[in-house]
């Protein structure tokens, strides 16, 4: 299973085993990550599963859709070039080793 590292806003790191085919949001919650809120359940409606993905990994992710782009304008913490919604990222073997940072808060 691909390993994903979550770095909390206080710098604490947690590595989880993510199930292929799940979304990064779901894998994070199943893996015990508490910094993802995901109020809408992964339907790209609430912008509360915001993560920052390092630039080096951006190219390996699916492109930002129009919906995600609009939603990212509504994150509580600043939108940056590396901002993504974790419900829109599907876990594949290619993402083994992915490192994402969590914002200070989601709501």
């Amino acid at each position, binding site marked *: 299973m691909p390993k994903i590292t979550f770095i909390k806003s206080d710098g604490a790191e947690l590595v989880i085993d993510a199930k292929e085919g799940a979304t990064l949001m*779901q894998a994070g*919650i199943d893996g015990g990550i508490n910094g993802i809120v995901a*109020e809408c359940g992964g339907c790209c409606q609430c912008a509360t599963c915001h993560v920052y993905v390092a630039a080096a990994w951006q190219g390996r992710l699916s492109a930002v859709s129009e919906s995600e782009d*609009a939603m990212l304008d*509504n994150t509580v913490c600043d939108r940056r070039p590396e901002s993504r919604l974790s419900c829109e990222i599907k876990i594949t073997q290619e993402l083994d080793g992915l490192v994402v940072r969590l914002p*200070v808060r989601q709501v």
Partner: protein
Amino acid sequence: MTATVAIVGAGLAGFQVASSLRDQQYPGRVLLIGDEPHRPYHRPPLSKAFLLNASEELPVAMRPDSYYADKKIEVLSSTRAVSVDRTHRKLALDNGSVIDFEHLVLAVGARNRPLHVPGYDLPGVFFLRHLDEARALRVRLHKAKQAVVIGAGFIGLEFAAAARKLGVAVTVLEVADRPMSRALSAPMSELFAREHANSGIRFLFGTQLKRLIDDEGRVAGVETVEGAVIDADLVLIGIGVIPNVELAATCNLEIRNGIAVDANLSTSDPHISALGDCASYPSPYAAEDFVRLESVQNASDQGRCVAARILGRASPYAAVPWFWSDQGPLKLQIAGLTMGHDQTVVRGDPAGISCSVFCFREGRLLGVETVNRPADHMAARRLIGNHVVLTPADAADEGVDLKQLAAAAAAQIPAC
């Protein structure tokens, strides 16, 4: 003795109260009581992605299991509250225990509106609200050839779109003359009727169900009051919900199309709050005096509001209502409350599948419905929340940049 907040209902509203109490360092006991056997999970995907994917076993949990122990949230599953003694602040549960509470939160939700026609309980007839219903429905859906949907509301049409995608023949029966007539403006409703019809969904409007046809103990079709017979090996009933007011009613709290609460989401007893699908409250965005909303946004934002009040930081609930429904390629989003509008202005091409309908009442913007225009929707949430004046002429003029207008008006949010 430690103060206890007892929360009845472990859906999103109840979960959010528990979670927000702990986020804000509530020191007492937090008890989350739910009648389902599952830990809190997200319901919206159940009528969307969950139906399409036959192999996905897990629902989307709201939090990892470890969360509840970490946060000292006591979850009582498969448990019902049976009565409330307001004088002594005691809550009786069906497992025989009695809880002394400092504050009681009624997040009891709503239940499927039943349809009492002959055959309503035949195998092959489904409702869709809970995980267990969704699981059973999904198994049947993946074997079905002909489905009939009773009710052209959000749930019925989300299901219908999923069923079409799986190649199932779908007929939708609706008593009104257009889909989602209570929730949507006429132009948006027409767009959905047309596009769903183009995808092969057959609609029968202005019709009522007479009976479900029994063939050797399972459903084989439906008959309308007009005498039309439609074959079906699966029938989904989606005719709305009824708020669960019984617990509140039996302890003499005020009821008015839901459990009556004030702007702070307090019932007529200050030690009892109600929120989410079951609560009727005064909304600054509504044309009516009181509204009862069934939505994710309402449940979570009201959850935060109730938690804040329990912690002594009461403030009137004033979040902008928003809604969504994914129906095949049609991504519907609504910002604001459009009920009672007297004028609509369309931006984009309503003959296609991407446009926005602005709903006004006496020239004032009430809400915006969008299909496949997420940027307009997000701008609309902010415009409405910040009470920005948008005239019907502005709404019609594509040159007026909604995002810019919204950004200019946005309150300064503290940086993280």
